[in-house]
């Protein structure tokens, strides 16, 4: 793990982010390799969303580097980060409620707007992943159930044809069964070769599907390891699985 490998596609090193005086992230280092599914565990306010927003370009780090496929992306505006292949589906879903499902999805393909055929292809892929969205494509996104809205949010992120998909607690506020369906879909997405960086509070569910994981506490990474290592870690079991 400590050895530098060639394959690191996303590499975050010694990243610090401040909100004024408050240090939200301190010297965070993290990486995602080709095809990997990485989960970031942590309680509310631990810094998961800040980390993702910074990778995504919505926040500027006060120190540290983020590189994606060898290219430095920290501090760049979010829209250019998207066109490099990093897409985030934000926490709390954030759809355009009055627009139809279809329009929400096509907005996700904004950076490929001239590629009509490609957009339709991606649309088909999203519908295949979430067949209910095909049925509801003409309905305003705001009229959908929580789980369906989450599917739209993930689908919209996929429409940008990302290399790395960042998901900030996609299961938040969903019924357990629906949450599992959403996570299952994320696994399927990862199987197509898209790297996934997932934030979760439910460590049990997340570690079941991820390859590796990081634990964030008070803005610092306190633990990291493969799925097996983390699942076997007594501290994690106590803190995040209630066992």
């Amino acid at each position, binding site marked *: 793990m400590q050895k530098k490998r060639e394959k690191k596609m996303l590499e975050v090193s010694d990243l610090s982010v401040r909100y004024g005086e408050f240090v939200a992230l301190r010297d965070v280092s993290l990486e995602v390799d080709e095809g990997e599914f990485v989960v970031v565990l942590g309680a509310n306010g631990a810094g998961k969303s800040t980390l993702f927003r910074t990778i*995504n370009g919505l926040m500027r780090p006060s120190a540290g580097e983020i590189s994606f496929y060898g290219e430095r992306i920290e501090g760049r505006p979010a829209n250019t980060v998207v066109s490099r292949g990093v897409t985030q589906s934000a926490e709390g879903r954030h759809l*355009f409620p009055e*627009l139809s499902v279809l329009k929400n999805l096509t907005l996700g393909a904004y950076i490929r707007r001239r590629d009509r055929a490609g957009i339709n292809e991606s649309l088909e892929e999203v519908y295949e992943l979430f067949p*209910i969205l095909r049925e509801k494509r003409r309905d305003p996104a705001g009229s959908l159930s929580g789980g369906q809205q989450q599917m739209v949010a993930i689908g919209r992120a996929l429409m*940008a044809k990302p290399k790395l998909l960042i998901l900030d607690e996609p299961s938040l506020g969903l019924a357990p*069964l*629906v949450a599992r369906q959403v996570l299952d879909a994320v696994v399927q997405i990862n199987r197509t070769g898209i790297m996934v960086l997932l934030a979760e509070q439910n460590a049990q569910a997340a570690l079941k599907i991820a390859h590796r994981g990081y634990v964030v506490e008070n803005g610092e990474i306190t633990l990291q390891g493969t799925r097996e290592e983390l699942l076997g870690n007594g501290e994690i079991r106590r803190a995040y699985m209630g066992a």
Partner: protein
Amino acid sequence: MQVLSRHWRKLALAVVLLVALLIPLFIDNQYLLGLIMLAYIWAIAAYGLNVLLGYTGQLTLAHAGFFGIGAYTVGILTVNYGFPFWPSLLLAVVFASVLGFLIGIFALRTQNEYFAIFTLGVGFVIFLVIERWESFTGGSLGLIGVPYPEGLGPIQFEGPEQLYYLILAFLVLTIYVAASIAHSLVGRSFIAIRNSPDLAMAAGINVGRTKQLAFTISTAIAGLSGGLYATYIGFLGPAIVNVPTTFEILLYLLVGGMGSLSGPLIGAFLVTTIFEYFQQFEAYRLVIFGPVVILLIIFFPRGLAGLWGELEARVRRSPEKEAEGREEPSREEVR
């Protein structure tokens, strides 16, 4: 159901257009015809504001300023320099949008209430320049004798009836442009910014450039409406450029419904006619109108157009959706 309602919408549109075309034949009353023309002009201005405020969510308070730039471009070119009307109108649009573009570069660096305050300042400065630059704009005495447009081929603009059709044509053109924008990806990126600039950025939209585009389009339309106003009214005074005019246009948009295609027209038409109707109450009109607007905003934040849309949605939803409720999708549906 959807197809049916689309047909109805087309039919309604055709009827409205037909009525609009026939109005001069039925109305002998010059005053009433003038009132309708004025409502059209304000509706065009409101469509301009709608692009920026309604769709993109940026509250500009400089709209009357750009309206004034358009009006005074036509006024000064025709009255002081003897320019023909048509190139003057074109220059009015060009000038307003170029100035809008340049001011937008600075104004759009600010956000939310700061943007509103910045543009309020811009609007007031434009007013002051027009009021004080007497040798050029006529100052507070204004410009007198802005001519009617020259004839276009067989069409001559001799009286209000002909001018009515000219203004109607520009209104239809404006609505057409607004509708094309609203239904395009550009319009959706405007809406995305209104909903959440962060989210728009995360979808890959260049927020700064897109806002700049919306601002420029809105000032171009403001310039157009100002140019038409100049030829319609024939006299220009600086008061029309002042900030209260911005709030009047804003009022049309609030009453009619922001971010909708019919809102600006409904609002401009209703408010101008109601205002004229209650003219006997003079300044007290505002005392009556103020509370009405407050109630409207509280209960119908999307204006009258939004109210209609809500009713329509409720009628359409009630039979099927109510039974379905808020059920989560079943497993099979997800797989």
